[in-house]
């Protein structure tokens, strides 16, 4: 990881008990989150989950009603945004349209008090360096109106990095871009993060983006933090049903735990259920946890209502007796046709006690 000496150590961010209410409803409720030094963390959730609010509170652009925010151990809760030294990248770039690219990037350095202000030559040098970093060398005199969406976003990032922020915060940075540009910029952001090594938090509602880019993912739902973990952790060991269903396909079955055995529809799924859990529960299964078997066998049955191909596997849509649909995965060679009756064998899943 290449890091210049002047950038110093990455710091951690600690969010302690942050709560914010808007007009009676809680946008964030008692959120506790630790962002490790130098990590790339995604705040993931549907709209209204509070992820942007949380990001803005960390930045100082919004204020929590309760709770605290710490940067590297020092309390920043009452620090005004100008003094927090955060780099913020907005969804719609917020570039200053009347300034050139160079002036945009150098802005943060020019507004510093005289004592801290670098010389004009130094500002120009830094600007060039950053334009190299974001692969826009030579664009100094262009104006935002002359740039494409992806280019504007890169300038916005360069501008945020110019002031050597302690942390980098991005609000749905690729939300306003085309799919193709988004994919390119994802890889590029990962690369930039490796090179600068700064603690970075970004907000997204796109789970593919979060899972692909982040070191850890924080899943939010309706103001509550559901789970924080690595992409593998949140996908394979979801802490709540919401996380399970939000991050990918999941089918839900009513299950019963008796004498340490897990039963669905009276049939045994596993003999290794947690002994302490007794009674009704919900079993959630991913498409690859369900195996197609001849009709009459397995734990569930239904009618094949759709067959499509996803990469190297077949995704089969099955409509159950009660009308609900679920998806299962099978190897390409499996001979299955729409309209066929099929049985489903549950091979794995995640158990939750609900309600």
């Amino acid at each position, binding site marked *: 990881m290449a890091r210049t000496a002047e950038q110093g150590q990455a710091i951690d961010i600690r969010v*302690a*008990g*942050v*709560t914010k*209410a808007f007009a*009676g*409803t*809680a946008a964030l*409720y*008692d959120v506790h989150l630790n962002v490790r030094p130098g990590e790339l963390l995604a705040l993931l959730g549907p709209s209204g989950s509070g992820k942007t609010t949380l990001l803005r509170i960390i930045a*100082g*652009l919004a*204020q*929590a*009603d*309760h*709770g*605290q925010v710490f940067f590297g151990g020092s309390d920043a*809760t*009452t620090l*005004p*945004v100008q003094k927090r030294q955060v780099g913020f990248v907005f969804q719609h770039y917020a570039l200053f349209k009347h300034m050139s690219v160079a002036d945009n990037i150098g802005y943060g350095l020019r507004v510093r008090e005289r004592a801290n202000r670098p010389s004009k030559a130094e500002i120009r040098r830094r600007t060039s360096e950053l334009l190299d970093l974001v692969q826009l060398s030579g664009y100094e005199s262009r104006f935002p109106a002359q740039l494409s969406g992806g280019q504007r976003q890169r300038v916005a990032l360069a501008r945020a990095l110019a002031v050597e922020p302690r942390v980098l915060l991005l609000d749905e940075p690729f939300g306003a871009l085309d799919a193709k540009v988004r994919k390119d910029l994802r890889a590029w952001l990962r690369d930039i993060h490796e090179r600068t090594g700064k603690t970075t938090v970004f907000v997204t509602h796109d789970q593919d983006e979060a899972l692909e880019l982040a070191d850890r993912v924080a899943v939010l739902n309706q103001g509550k933090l559901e789970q924080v973990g690595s992409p593998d952790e949140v996908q394979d060991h979801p802490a709540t049903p919401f996380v399970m269903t939000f991050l990918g396909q999941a089918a839900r079955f009513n299950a019963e735990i008796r004498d340490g055995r897990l039963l669905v529809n009276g049939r045994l799924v596993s003999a290794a259920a947690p002994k302490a859990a007794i009674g009704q529960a919900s079993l959630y299964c991913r498409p690859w946890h369900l195996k197609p078997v001849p009709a009459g066998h397995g734990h569930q049955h239904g009618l094949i209502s759709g067959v499509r191909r996803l990469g190297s596997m077949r995704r089969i849509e099955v409509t159950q007796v009660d009308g609900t649909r679920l998806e299962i995965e099978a190897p390409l060679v499996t001979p299955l046709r729409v309209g066929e009756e099929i049985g489903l064998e549950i091979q794995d899943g995640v158990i939750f006690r609900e309600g």
Partner: protein
Amino acid sequence: MSDLSAVLAPPVLAQQSVVTEHKLVRQLAITVALVFLLLFVVLPLAVVFVEAFRRGLAGFLAAFQEADALAAIQLTLTVAAIAVPLNLVFGLAASWAIAKFEFKGKSLLITLIDLPFSVSPVVSGLIYLLLFGAQGLFGPWLMAHGIKIAFALPGIVLATIFVTFPFVARQLIPLMQEQGTAEEEAALTLGASGWRTFLTVTLPNIKWGLLYGVLLCNARAMGEFGAVSVVSGHIRGLTNTIPLHVEILYNEYNFVAAFAVASLLAGLALVTLALKSFLEWRHGADLASGTHR
């Protein structure tokens, strides 16, 4: 959410918002702005009405019992009654041609329509004198045929039309441009004739903008001073409109009468403004007035 406060972390003090100025700065700015407006806008308006009623209601009404005043009012109404409908028809025709069709020279046409706005009122009157005055281009011919245009009603009407004709068009053009041609085309495909389409589809869509344009046009037509002053010849009782009559009264130091007559026009201005606010509040989208003046 009633137990929100139960187990929460300590509350945070409110802070200065990032998207507005400090409270004191705001209050100072508001004060300066209001004082400025008071001095330059509110007080002049107030003066008109206060001075008009300085001798009470009787004094106010006395101003209108004079023959010259009545003649002035009648002339003003006549001029407006001719000029406004003519400009209305022009405005409808021009905005139909400009908003519903694409053709070369459109922006030049729009600029030409805006022309009277940039011409001094005095010059607006002068050009008609140059055409129809005794020494004007058509002067001798008119005199030979006994037709009076300058220093008579026709001249006043022409000058008024010149000064006020952009109003309706300027109001309607952006409005109709924004509305597009889809609805009219739909009506045509359903079999309606051009006229019918215009009356039943276009007009209802533009009615509020049209009303406002007509109001402005009328207010200006009744209140025009400079152009009419030049072209009318100031013949008392014959070619004096309300504004010209106000001037005469004022120059004769007959202040109460001057302000009394002036208050008619001031009242008209207030009604126009009130209606504009009402229309914007209720039908804001239908006015599409934007930055146009």
